[in-house]
C-alpha cells in the first residue's frame, strides 16, 4: 500500500481535480486498492512528507521535502502528462 500526498495552495481545489485524474490513471493501470491519497495544503506538505511515499503537487516542490516529488499541473492541462505518469508508476512499483 502506497501513501500518496497530494497538495495544492489551499489543499482543496486543484488537488481535488488532480486526485480524480490520478486515481483514474492508477486504477486503469492495475494499481486499484494499492494506494491511499491524502490531500493537504502545500504549506503542510514538508512536515507530513516523511510519512508518505511521494508527493504530487500543483505548486513548486517545497524545500526540505522528505519524499519524492511529482509535478501535478500537467494533469490539469493535459499537456505533457507522460513524464509525471511514468514517475508515478515507477514510484508505485518501488
Amino acid at each position, binding site marked *: 500500500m502506497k501513501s500518496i500526498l497530494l497538495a495544492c495552495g489551499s489543499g*482543496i*481545489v486543484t488537488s481535488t481535480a488532480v*486526485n480524480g485524474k490520478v486515481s483514474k490513471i492508477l486504477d486503469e493501470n492495475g494499481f486499484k486498492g494499492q494506494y491511499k491519497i491524502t490531500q493537504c495544503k502545500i504549506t503542510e506538505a514538508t512536515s507530513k512528507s516523511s510519512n508518505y511515499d511521494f508527493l504530487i503537487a500543483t505548486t513548486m516542490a517545497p524545500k526540505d521535502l522528505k519524499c519524492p516529488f511529482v509535478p501535478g499541473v500537467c*494533469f*490539469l492541462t493535459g499537456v505533457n502528462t507522460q513524464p509525471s505518469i511514468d514517475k508515478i508508476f515507477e514510484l508505485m512499483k518501488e
Partner: protein
Amino acid sequence: MEEILKDVYLDPDLIEVKLKAKNWDEVLQKMGELFFKKKIVKASFIPAVISREKIFSTGLQCNDIGVAIPHTDSEHVNTQSIAIAVLEEPVIFKQMGDSEINVRVNIVFMLAIKEPHKQLDFLQALMTVFQDQGKLKSLLDCNKAEDVVKRFISFFKIDQGKEAD
C-alpha cells in the same frame, strides 16, 4: 449536465466578453466585483483572491490557449459559482507550479468554491474542458455573455459519460 452543474450558480451577469485589463490584478478585481455585486462572495474575497494569486499563481498553458483559474478559501464565498472572462487582449499570469513561466491568458475562470469535495465532478469536468482546444476556442469566439453561458453548459452535456484524456 444537471448533475455536474447543479450546485454551481451560472449567470450571464458573471460573464464578461472582451474584458479589457492592463494586468492580472485588474482582471481579478473586475471579476471579483461581478461576484460581489451578486453577493456570491464576501467583500474579503477580492483582496484574498489577489493575494493568493501572488503566492499560488493559477495560469495554465493549455496548448495554444492560456487560461487561469483564480480562487481562494471558501470562508470568503457565499454561493458556489463560476465567473468567466474572455479577454480582449491576452494578459500575463504566472504559470501554476512555476512562477518563472509567463502564460498569455485568453480566458479566466474565476471559481467561488464552497464545498470542494462535493465539487469533484465539476472540477474534473472543467479540467476536461481545458484539455479540449475546440471548446476553449469556441468560448473565444463568443460575442455575448449569454452565448458563453450556453456554450459552457453544452460542454458538460456533451462530456457526460465521455472519458477525459
